[in-house]
């Protein structure tokens, strides 16, 4: 490769990186779970009935700033949170959204987004989320837990796709913990009813 070609290639790479993060971006309303190739997903022995989804953030319009690029929150926060919590399905939980909890022995839950923000430090980009789930059975709360997802990856160009993927991966972590608790609560119900 000639030096001119090398310089052109490098210039192209730099230009791509420079252009990647221009202007504000808006995070997607649809959460996309990580595709786990060949990973078997445990199937829930009961359904999680989600009766309320709350956004506790003071300003849901913005998630933060990565490398000087403003990352706006999804245009429909409720739809986004439904998509995120619905992501429990990827972890083997049968999720239903309903208007109100029932008095039956089915497991129901209220979800609350406490934190979701992105930032950058030096050449790294960071996403941090905290999702709270309150679990109910037969009208009584049986557990409340915060599920945290935190991820730090190199910031290549503040690109939309890499930032979106980082946010989704942070939720992957939170949902994985939530799924483990949900499965345990489901299992305990099956055990106690037999």
């Amino acid at each position, binding site marked *: 490769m000639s030096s001119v070609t090398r310089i052109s290639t490098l210039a192209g790479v730099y230009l791509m990186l420079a252009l990647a993060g221009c202007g504000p971006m808006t995070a997607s309303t649809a959460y996309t779970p990580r595709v786990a190739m060949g990973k078997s997903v445990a199937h829930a022995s009961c359904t999680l009935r989600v009766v309320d989804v709350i956004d506790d953030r003071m*300003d849901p319009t*913005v998630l933060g*700033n990565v490398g000087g690029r*403003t990352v706006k929150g999804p245009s429909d926060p409720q739809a986004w949170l439904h998509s995120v919590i619905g992501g429990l399905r990827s972890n083997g939980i049968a999720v239903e959204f309903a208007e109100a909890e029932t008095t039956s022995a089915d497991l129901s839950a209220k979800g609350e987004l406490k934190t*979701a923000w992105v930032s950058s430090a*030096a*050449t790294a980009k960071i996403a941090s989320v905290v999702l709270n789930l309150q679990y109910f059975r037969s009208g009584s709360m049986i557990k409340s837990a915060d599920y*945290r997802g935190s991820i730090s990856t190199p910031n290549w160009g503040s690109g939309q796709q890499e930032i979106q993927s980082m946010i989704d991966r942070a939720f992957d972590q939170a949902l994985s913990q939530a799924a483990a608790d949900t499965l345990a609560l489901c299992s305990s119900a099956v055990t106690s009813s037999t």
Partner: protein
Amino acid sequence: MKAMEPARRAALGFVFVVMAGCASQPRHFLDPADRSPVGGREAVVLVPQGEIKTVVVASQAGAAFGLVGAIIDVSVNQHRANAAEKSITPLRTALTDYHFDQQALAATEVTVSRLDWLAVRKTSFSKDISKENTNSILDKSASPEVLFVSYSYELSADFAMMQVDARFSIFPKAASKGQSSDSRMKLENAAYSENYTYLIPLAGAGEDVAENCRHWSDNNAEIARRALVQGIGGVNALAERGLAQSGDDVKKLQLGAKVDAGGRKGKLIEKTDAGTLLLDDLGNWVFVVESPVG
């Protein structure tokens, strides 16, 4: 402690770039004639971060080695960022139900209400520090000027010090003649801008970051909560004093003796039992608390 200096500079630089787009020296006082504009002011509290953060000192070791050096720096920075995120997670978890945003908004509301001559008629909150948002706030404001109060809070790289910052800036709704509307947010066009820093050391802090973090986090982050309350109150008290400064007062600040307090260098404004107040090289008011918390 030395790690605080680049962190503060980075944070300040961020605010400068995002809110101003230039690095010129802002005005540190309001002329008597400009104190109470007809039509009053609007105040907007900005807290861009979602949780407490810590300083990540950027690697520059590869700066002299071109692309290979840059890749090395990225790798080192990533390692440091990962370690910092891992270290601060216990404290974030303990502070999950601590609402810095609400505390900052409430404290600012109290401050502006005490400075009745500021004539703040409405105070709102935003996490969006983008130029688009700040321009939009100016466009929509019913007042001729808007006071932006931008907060940040963080632990030093060694977790030995809590730092709360608040930059109070007043920008005009109308652009100067012949200038674009974007120019309104340039610091050189601010009617007033000053950064207030409050530093609270951790009692018994050592070199072990994890151990220091444990101290901040213990008992539902009781010490960190106290430090944050102290810091928010502290920067507001400094602002209340700073906003009332005259041009002569500001000139006198330049005459202070050079001091070093808690690793921060600057010109001494005053030293009391509570701590040391200094004016650093960038013109920021920095208060270093004398008694460590904890």
